[in-house]
């Protein structure tokens, strides 16, 4: 278990309980049951308290937790016959974006998402989930294909943002993102999206301009990272807590603003403490969201999606 900074006190108690149990295993005469149970209870109470009212900044930390299920985990757990499709047919295959044909229950779909990787090697290979133009152009190609064959598109969003690199800029990062957003708005098939971790700015919008958008309870979705915002508006990157607060980047605030359609509950202590449970909840939400729009005519799906975004933000927080 990787503990976050704000979970340190919890880590200490859980560590002590673990130590006691280890001692008891070596010395059968020791009776630690009572003491260990008291520690367990204390830890459970503390976990509840910590997660009862997570601050926006702490939500950012949870959303970035390395043990959270990532795109590939969801695809493995929720889909069958996943058949990855690679490449943008222009330049390269970007491993920060994965996608392909798969079945959700029995229905064939196109699934696309950003993958961050789970250890040093895979993180480097996936570029920490930061896509280059090739990644967005691959997504465009797959959405286009889904449109032609009438397959619903499911996107799983988890990225700190599009990659700020030399080659990425030279090959048209902004154009690729703009075209991906445009493709999202054009396709005459159901498009549903879940922000499973970080929804980082334009790099997220490019996949999340969907008929239905859900967010996991502790995921975040923002125009800029709190660190970036703090360094620009506060001239001090250490003011990320204040920035996270001001940006209204939590699922709860975004639901109030009418930017997202539903919130998917996470287990107590975050998705990283109940990976299977989280993934099952995302699966159920995908079914529910697809159920709401499946069967609609292609034109209607497109016009509904366009109208949804045109009308967004009309009321601010009063919405």
């Amino acid at each position, binding site marked *: 278990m990787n503990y976050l900074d704000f979970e340190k006190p919890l880590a200490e108690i859980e560590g002590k309980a673990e130590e006691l149990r280890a001692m008891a295993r070596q010395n059968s005469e020791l009776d630690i049951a009572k003491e260990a149970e008291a520690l367990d209870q204390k830890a459970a109470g503390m976990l509840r308290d910590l997660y009862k009212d997570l601050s926006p900044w702490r939500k950012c930390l949870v959303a970035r937790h390395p043990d959270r299920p990532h795109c590939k985990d969801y695809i493995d757990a929720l889909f069958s016959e996943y058949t990855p499709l690679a490449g943008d047919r222009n330049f390269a295959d970007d491993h920060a974006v994965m996608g392909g044909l798969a079945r959700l229950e029995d229905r064939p779909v196109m699934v696309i998402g950003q993958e961050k990787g789970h250890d040093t090697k895979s993180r480097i290979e996936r570029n920490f989930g930061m896509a280059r133009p090739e990644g967005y152009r691959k997504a465009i190609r797959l959405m286009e294909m889904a449109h032609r064959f009438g397959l619903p598109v499911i996107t799983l969003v988890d990225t700190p943002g*599009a*990659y700020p690199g030399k080659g990425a800029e030279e090959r*048209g990062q902004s154009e690729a993102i703009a075209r991906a957003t445009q493709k999202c708005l054009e396709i005459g098939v159901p498009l549903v999206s879940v922000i499973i971790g970080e929804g980082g700015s*334009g790099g997220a*919008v490019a996949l999340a301009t969907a008929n239905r958008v859900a967010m996991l309870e502790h995921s975040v979705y923002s125009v*800029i990272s709190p660190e970036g915002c703090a360094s620009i508006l506060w001239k001090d990157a250490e003011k990320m807590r204040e920035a996270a607060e001001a940006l209204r980047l939590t699922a709860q*605030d975004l639901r109030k603003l009418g930017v997202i359609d539903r919130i998917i509950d996470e287990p107590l202590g975050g998705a990283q403490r109940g990976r299977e449970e989280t993934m099952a909840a995302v699966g159920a939400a995908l079914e529910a969201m697809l159920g709401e729009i499946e069967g609609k005519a292609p034109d209607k799906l497109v016009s509904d999606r366009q109208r949804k*975004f045109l009308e967004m*933000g009309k009321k*601010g927080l009063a919405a």
Partner: protein
Amino acid sequence: MNWITNYVRPRINSLFSRREVPENLWRKCDECGSMLFHRELADNLNVCTNCGHHMPITPRERFKTLFDNGVYSEVKVPEPVADPLHFRDQKRYPDRMKAAQRATGEKEAMLIAEGEVGRTPVVSAAQDFSFMGGSMGMYVGNAIIAACERAVKLGRPLVLFSAAGGARMQEGILSLMQMPRTTVAVQMLREAGLPYIVVLTHPTTGGVTASYAMLGDVQIAEPNALICFAGPRVIEQTIREKLPEGFQRAEYLLDHGMLDRVTHRKDMRDELITILRMLMHQPPAVRGDLPPPEPLTPAEPEPRQAEAGDASETAGEKTDRGTG
């Protein structure tokens, strides 16, 4: 404390925009540092007479030289909710807005106009870098939607001049949502078969570049304009190497296939007329000194004097007017 200084003074200040106070006679070029006589700079469309640097130009100045005889009418933009997030950094967002409005004499960072350019009726949108860095929030989104709706209604092309540091952070996620919103607006033009021409000016960056500013049928940039998604400083910090000379400037983008053209500001109007008239299936513009066209109404102002190399006078058949 005197209530007059507290309450009356700020209102008076906001009534008189900065254009009415005596302007500085000299302005320094941001690029080469030359001191330029204000009048001379204005006559040169805010292009440095020494090094050719294209300095920011306000939407009103732009429209004055773009539209025939400088005549245009503004298109109304629906007002969004003010301060939708109740955002506060070191200052309150409404205070930042008020300061920007006082400094510019403008309501927001984008102006929409309709009129004729070389006798071709167009709708035009111009972003104001001097207003909070031209940043894109709900108002800019509404402005682009209004421009596209107006263009579709009148059957006219849209010419958009972009200039922005990116999304308006003070509107958080709602500024980000202007990326899909403005993309829907551009879609309306596509569906109506109307040309959408983007002129990228210095600087155009971030979420603006990654939405409506990169979706033009024709992409033109002013010389040396910085055009990017991530800014050069962010990239240097990420990759820890020095970027090549001219990186992310208009000419560099042209070399990398990201633009159709790089065009000097003094030639822009001419070029727009040429392109628009072809895309709108109109006869070629007639260049040179022509007798002024028959005025539509007796009250129309005197036609502008044609300058050398200027194509302000074009074929003036009645059929050219009110296309669509």
